[in-house]
């Protein structure tokens, strides 16, 4: 069968031509076919649900900030401003908070938004334990909630509370939610447009691919200047950066320093390092105890001596870490409150910061009687053993191992030997909760009100010996701190409260259980050829996305009409190149086949 191989060869060439011919078809489809005025953001992290009662993941919480207003929103400088409620009053004893919802407020479906909706939402969290999973801790001081009339909502507190109870709890429409058989699973999937009061509502959710939001025409501050927002799912940030460069998306947040610096040179892209809301610190185990004062964990006993902890923290240079590990994109840390909350940031007036001073740290340890052995490692005077400490960090956070590379030699200089252990994040969580550590890198995102973060440092917030029960941030018990916590909790005068908060933080600072190293900037990049006018939060130097409220994305406006890049329906350069290549290959293939056939025929 002499014809078979020839036929096969021809078939192969034809297949190749078809495959290559497909290239222009595949490449020519517009990358952005939708309406211009839709802002596209990369979503890097997971989404479990859009249910504001149950979800606690960062991405759905950020999306829900667009959908559901709280009674009180964090303003452009993180100050409390009107949200679902227009104004509020506190009784002189701090036990009764009264919120006013103005006439004419509407949900996105046109139904009136009233105090009834707020009462329904808050009562649901208080009475249905399944609906308490995301925000239960925020209502734990609520005694009762009542809608006196459609305009007036009253919250009675169990104990006086200075922090505004209307912050951070998304209010949902009663007329939609009370119809749900199981409200705790509602909005796990999106089957119809979500009804909310915020500037945008989710209309479509394709799992692990995209979330589409449309502007709410009834938003009380006025409809957004853009038609909507799409969160486009990326499972790794490098691909999202390529998507930004290619124009598939408009804004990427959470960039690494290397990505951020590389994007600075792109003419179509603007970079933004907004001050972040998260602290990153180095914790030392002061000899953790349970809520019943039983010793917990396996911390090195030498760390029970505050002098040792202080010396360790004095040997860690926060500025070097900021410059070398964070590329300068961070602010050196002091207390747990980051710079964006200027009222509560820093130590009280007159308090001294711990210096970076290795010589002074050595002197502290010398004076305390920790002598150096022949290998330069100091001896614990109580146990007569060399001081060797474990330093734990997350193997998924590159900064942890990079910081460890600096911390280890620094501590060596003061005669403390360090073994670095980079482990799974879940192991860090588990071990730190039960005091199984000497030193470890820790970090928390901080909300606009400092109450919660302080509350988890009280004696009463220590866990049970097996790690169940309460969560303690630093495993301490300091009655003086507890007193300051209680005072700030009930202090209605903002200036006095701020001072009490700083004093409370100073107790943690002086006890040397936590060295706050830095507040990392939020590294973002966006298409400046398409978008501008992003409102920062705080307005001076804050980030654009993932704010405490909706300002950044609500304020976005496209540049002129051209920005719109109303789907580039024309062919891209790549597509044109593809077509040319395909044409050459197809014609070349045909010529080749003809020639081949002829020559084979000749041979035959």
């Amino acid at each position, binding site marked *: *069968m002499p014809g*078979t*191989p020839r036929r096969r060869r021809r078939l192969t060439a034809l297949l190749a031509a078809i495959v290559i011919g497909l290239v222009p*078809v*595949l*490449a020519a*489809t517009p*990358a952005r*076919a*939708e*309406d211009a005025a*839709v802002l*596209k953001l990369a979503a890097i992290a*997971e989404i*479990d*649900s859009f249910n504001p009662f149950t979800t606690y993941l960062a991405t759905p919480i950020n999306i829900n900030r667009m959908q559901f207003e709280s009674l009180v929103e964090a303003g452009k400088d993180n100050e409390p401003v009107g949200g679902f409620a227009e104004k509020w009053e506190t009784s002189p004893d701090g036990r009764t908070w009264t919120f006013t919802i103005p006439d004419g407020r509407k949900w996105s479906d046109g139904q009136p938004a009233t105090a009834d909706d707020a009462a329904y939402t808050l009562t649901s969290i208080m009475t249905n*334990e399944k609906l*308490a*999973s995301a*925000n*239960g*801790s*925020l209502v*734990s001081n609520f005694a009762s909630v009542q809608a006196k009339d459609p305009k007036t909502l009253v919250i009675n507190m169990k104990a006086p509370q200075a922090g505004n109870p209307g912050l951070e709890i998304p209010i949902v429409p009663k007329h939609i939610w009370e119809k749900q058989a199981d409200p705790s699973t509602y909005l*796990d999937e999106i089957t119809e447009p979500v009804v909310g009061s915020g500037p945008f509502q989710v209309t479509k959710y394709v*799992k*692990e*691919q995209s979330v*589409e939001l449309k502007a709410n025409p009834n938003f009380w501050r006025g409809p957004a200047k853009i038609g909507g927002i*799409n969160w*486009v*799912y*990326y*499972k*790794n940030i*490098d*691909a*999202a950066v*390529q*998507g930004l*460069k*290619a*124009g*598939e998306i408009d804004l990427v947040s959470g960039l690494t320093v290397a990505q951020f610096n590389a994007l600075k040179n792109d003419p179509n892209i603007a970079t933004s390092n907004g001050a972040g809301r998260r602290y990153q610190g180095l914790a030392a185990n002061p000899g953790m105890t349970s809520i019943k004062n039983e010793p917990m964990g396996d911390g090195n006993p030498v760390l029970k001596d505050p002098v040792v902890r202080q010396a360790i923290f004095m040997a860690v240079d926060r500025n070097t870490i900021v410059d070398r590990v964070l590329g300068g994109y961070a602010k050196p840390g002091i207390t747990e409150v980051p710079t964006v909350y200027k009222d509560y940031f820093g130590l009280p007036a007159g308090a001294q910061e711990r210096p970076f001073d290795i010589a002074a740290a050595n002197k502290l340890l010398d004076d305390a009687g920790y002598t150096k052995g022949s290998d330069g490692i100091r001896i614990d005077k109580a146990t007569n053993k060399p001081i060797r400490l474990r330093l734990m960090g997350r193997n998924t956070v590159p900064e942890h191992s990079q910081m460890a590379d600096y911390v280890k030699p620094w501590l060596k200089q003061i005669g403390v030997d360090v073994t670095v252990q980079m*482990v*799974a*994040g*879940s*192991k860090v*969580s*588990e071990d730190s*909760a039960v005091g199984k550590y000497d030193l470890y890198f820790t970090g928390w995102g901080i909300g606009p009100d400092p109450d919660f973060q302080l509350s988890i440092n009280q004696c009463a917030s220590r866990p049970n010996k097996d*790690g*169940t*029960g309460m*969560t303690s941030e630093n495993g301490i018990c300091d009655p003086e701190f507890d007193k300051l916590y209680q005072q700030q909790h009930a202090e209605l005068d903002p200036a006095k409260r701020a001072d009490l908060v700083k004093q409370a933080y100073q107790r943690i600072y002086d006890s040397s259980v936590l060295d706050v190293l830095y507040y990392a900037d939020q590294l973002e990049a966006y298409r400046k050829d398409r978008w501008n006018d992003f409102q920062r939060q705080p307005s001076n130097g804050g980030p654009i996305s993932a704010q405490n409220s909706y300002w950044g994305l609500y304020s976005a406006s496209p540049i002129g009409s051209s920005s719109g890049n109303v789907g580039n329906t024309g062919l*891209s*350069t*790549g597509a044109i190149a*593809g077509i040319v290549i395909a044409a050459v290959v197809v014609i070349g293939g045909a010529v080749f086949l003809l020639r081949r056939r002829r020559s084979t025929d000749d041979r035959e």
Partner: protein
Amino acid sequence: MSDAVPSALAPHEAVTPSDEPIRGASLGRYLATKALGAAISLLMVVVLGFFAFRILPGDPVLSMTRGRMVTPEEIARLRREFGLDQPLVVQFGRYLADLTRGDLGTSFFYNAPVSRLIAERAGSTLLLTGTAAVISIVLGLWLGQRAAWKRNSGFDKATTGLALVFWSVPTFWLGLLLLMAFGGPLPTGGMITPGLNATGFAYVVDVARHLVLPVAAMVAVTYAQYLMTMRSSMLEEMTADYLTTARAKGLNEDGVRTKHAVPNALLPTVTIIFMTLGHLIGGAITVETVFSWPGLGYLTYQALSAPDLPLLQGTFVVFSSIVVIMNFLADLVYRVLDPRLKAA
């Protein structure tokens, strides 16, 4: 080494069924032995699926609630809801009882049935891994037999060398290079263009566009195993006497190759192809991560970080069972295809 469309086999290994059937054994006995082996493997999978993941460090409830505002009541409620407050034996009993009903449990993290989570992603994973496997198998086998036939020629050296280079390239790195080179004309992630709302042919084209880069990356790092297997198998056949006979009958070289050598050389590739089929459902974590493909590989990876025990158990049991079943089928098919293994 690639982890896409994984195979435990290195490309240079000549592939034979895992344990050689006993020559002369009756078909019934052969079937019974293989079926029993598969059943024991399945049982091990079920037991291992439960206990293996409980060795993992990390309390799921603590790691899910760490770093956010939660009350102790909420933590206790989660433990109760997940059944983690029960002794291990009780948990195991519940797991077995659920499994016999076909219930894989409810994911801690997604708060949804594990079987639904797997089913939702199975289609997109199979589309990606299946397309890549078909192209990779066809390309690998075709190039492999050509390379063997022209042994030590420029073509042989070039194709083999290139295949091995791609095989050695880290998938993640290759994927990112493809993104940098072709991102723009082709999509940088996902399976459909968000906001496009395409239907019909436009939808197919849209998905195909998204498929190009991930499939290219997967094919590049996997086709070598088929090529090398086919090549070595073909080389063995090339010295066989029946080819001389075929030539003596007057067949030309192409005819000898395609009609006689290739069908015999294909036999050892059966096992490797079935193993590939078994692993298709497991997805390809690296490729799915680089190209943001909504698939099962990434779901498993995500489950590990919590750890989301029901999701880990469920995916492990499903994926492993499919591999066991495919290996069993490979043993059967091999016996049917190769008359030498049948009873004497």
